[in-house]
């Protein structure tokens, strides 16, 4: 059932998860979390990373009990066919909505920072067109591209490092200033940026190696994302005060903007170009997941035909909101959806699986 053509290695899995997780959050996360957790935002992010590690663990545990099966294959086994279909649809809707929100946020950044007059449907349309080109392929090719662009994350970090020339270390003090409750609120907000690990639901059966290696890859991936996000948030804490951050929705970009190097100025433009590719990888992954969900809903094994249709739906969703209120409203809905599908359901399904002892009989498979 699992063709050799689609196999990926654990290392590739790690990069797959990282690239899906790290996306729009690079720019939006610091501001969002600091609004609640003030100068302890970086602690909140680390806690958020821990929470997502736990969720990743739950998904892994589920996948381990059904070797060789993709999530949507064993979902009906756990919930029964009719309920399973409903849940399946919820997941498909979640992926489409999440992708739409990501694109809407991306479009906002482009509109605010570079192209104030270019219509966003154009930019988002191009974004989706390129993503469609990649997402019609199977996981192996997508992962190859992700590995290729992985290095760009380091370039972003490198650019952000320059901000330390003007960092004010005192801003981080006093630690714990915000209070435990606020830090927790901040962690909850940060979860949005850690979502992406659900790609494991689709990728698990394709990984060459034992389930232990899958777990290791997943944990390393989550750790990497946590470190990157925490670093970026920490840098913002050192450069901006909480009051300022309330005004600046994309602090990293703001910080990079004022950097001046000998060979170029306005490094934020380069940062944005590279960040575009990072967001592209996230969009490709979500498009793939959405298309796979929809196509398996209709019983198809190949998702290539569904991709353009799903992309069109996402596109319409992304260009629909035209002010901040609508985006906030969409984000709340998506937040509810993701909490349901990525926090509640996996744990629930895991419990069901254990209690009712539903699992796939281990088939001896040579890796």
């Amino acid at each position, binding site marked *: 059932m699992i063709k050799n053509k689609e196999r990926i290695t654990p*290392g*590739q899995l790690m990069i797959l998860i990282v690239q899906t997780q790290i996306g729009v959050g690079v720019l939006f996360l610091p501001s969002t979390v600091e609004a609640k957790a003030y100068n302890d935002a970086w602690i909140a992010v680390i806690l958020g990373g821990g929470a997502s590690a736990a969720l990743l663990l739950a998904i892994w545990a589920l996948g381990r009990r059904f070797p060789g099966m993709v999530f949507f294959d064993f979902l009906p086994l756990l919930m029964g066919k009719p309920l399973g279909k409903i849940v399946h649809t919820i997941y498909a809707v979640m992926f489409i909505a999440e992708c739409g929100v990501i694109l809407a946020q991306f479009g906002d950044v*482009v509109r605010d920072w*570079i*192209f104030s007059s*270019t219509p966003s449907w154009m*930019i988002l349309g*191009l*974004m989706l067109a*390129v993503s469609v*080109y*990649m997402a019609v*392929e199977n996981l192996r*090719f997508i992962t*190859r*591209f992700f*590995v*290729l*662009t992985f290095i760009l994350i380091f370039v972003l970090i490198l650019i952000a490092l320059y901000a330390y020339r003007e960092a004010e270390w005192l801003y981080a003090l006093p630690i714990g200033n915000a209070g435990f409750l606020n830090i927790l609120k901040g962690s909850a907000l940060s979860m949005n940026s850690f979502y992406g690990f659900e790609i494991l639901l689709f990728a698990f059966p394709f990984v060459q190696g034992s389930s232990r290696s899958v777990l290791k890859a997943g944990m390393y991936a989550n750790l990497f994302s946590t470190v990157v996000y925490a670093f970026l948030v920490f840098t913002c804490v050192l450069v901006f005060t909480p009051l300022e951050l309330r005004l600046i929705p994309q602090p990293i970009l703001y910080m990079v903007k004022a950097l001046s190097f*000998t*060979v*170029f*100025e*306005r490094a934020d*433009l*380069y940062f*944005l*170009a*590279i960040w*575009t*590719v990072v967001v*592209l990888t996230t969009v490709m992954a979500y498009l793939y997941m959405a298309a796979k969900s929809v196509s398996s809903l209709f019983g198809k094994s190949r998702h290539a035909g569904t991709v353009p249709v799903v992309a069109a739906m996402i596109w319409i969703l992304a260009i629909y909101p035209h002010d901040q209120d609508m985006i906030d409203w969409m984000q709340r809905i998506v937040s509810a959806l993701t909490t349901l599908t990525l926090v509640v359901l996996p744990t629930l399904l895991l419990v069901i699986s254990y209690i009712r002892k539903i699992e796939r009989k281990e088939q001896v498979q040579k890796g």
Partner: protein
Amino acid sequence: MGFIKRMLTNNRKESKSPPGITRRAPAHGRRATGDIAANVEYVHDALFHTDDLQERSFEQADRPALLVYLSSVCDLAKIHEAILKPLLNSEDKDPERIIPAADMRRLTDLESGIELLLRGYTLLFRHEREEFYAIETAVIVQRSVDEPSNEKAVQGAHNGFIESLHVNLQLVRRQIGSRNLVVRRYSLGNMTKTEASLVYLNDLADPEIVEDIDQRLRAIDADNLMNGYLVLEYIEDRSFSPFPQILQTERPDRVAANLLEGRVALLMEGTSAALLMPSSFFVFYQSPDDYNSRSLAGSFIRLLRLFSFLITITLPAYYIAVVSFHYEVIPMELFYQIKGSVERIPYPPILEALFMELTIELLREASIRLPTPVSQSIGIVGGLVIGDAVVRVGLVSYPMIIVVALTAIASFVVPSHEMSYSVRLLRFPVMIAASMFGFIGIAFCLTAIFVHLCKLKSFGTPYFAPVAPFRILDWKDALVRLPYWKLNERPNDPRPQKLVQERRSKEGGRHDQE
């Protein structure tokens, strides 16, 4: 709707040849008889009484015999020496004991005889014998084994393939003495019947790939397969991709090196280039020069070449994006200078760029066809005079000239002619994307290109290996060039059967002791 269809297709008529003229060879051949005249008549008929079909009748051992040959492809001297002379001077009834020809075949099927006739064989018919002989007497006209003019290497062998399949195979066999070097023969093209040979190392090349190539070759049903390039387009994976998937080379040392990595070579009669498959992107960036110079130098040059790929594609686009959208990135000191140069140009930078690029392409194309004495002066005229005049008039700005010139230079750094074209073609979409959406446009376009590279496969092997999939160990020969005693394993992309290519050698010529 139907009207539009008719409008677009009304010039194409079904081609029907008049009846009676075409004639296909009967599928099961035609048996020769003891009647010489009947046989010869059949042959003349089959070749439509072509005038260069000659006969020579004689008596040998008191029996009538007849030689039939195509005078245009036969070496008459060979016929004299190898066939006529011995036959006329001998009383032996068995030609096989008389004729001192190495390639002599005994046949009964006239159709196969006719095939051989067309290749320069002479047919010997004897009275009341149903068998006849075909003796190889082809004329050999060939040029000398000179270094190919577009694939020069500074150091290394200076010989190259020529149009004779026989000589080319010889050159390859001389490089690799292994008994595992296997040659498979094909006759390609329904009308051209070109001889082709597939060459590979039996214990190294992936048998699946060899069979795949074999199938693709057999599946071609075309009239004209005269040269390598025609065959290439039939068997390659994606003809519409901008990137070449099969390496063409005229150098025997390159072919041999690639065979030793597990690739397969296709040599054809009449083509002085060998086709190497499967190829990856980085194979096109390797040149024999890298291997014949020191490791550091070779690595540096190789990295430079790969860098030139990026420059060719992105430099004009980057400049256009900066001058059209994002001029703030220009550093302070340079800013006003560039601004001053650009101010006088009346139209947008994308048009400037296209104008200059097209001019350079025209110059390049023209310089290929110029007779040698003139080409030098045209180069100067084109480069210096036109370039300078164009700026003075105000059609193009100085920075644009610099950008275009650098790009042109960078695009010729690639050792492969094919890849050079590809890369030069690719920069146009990127430029257009840059002129529409600035840096974001460049990001989108480059992503699309790299996605394409990731998806592309050459005979089942990933095209962009060892970058995607990421095999850092293979970088030792793709991105840099480590010393040979370090290259313990072959690169993975042609999927060779054996990875280990050298054992435990160390620097300084020492060998690891047990």
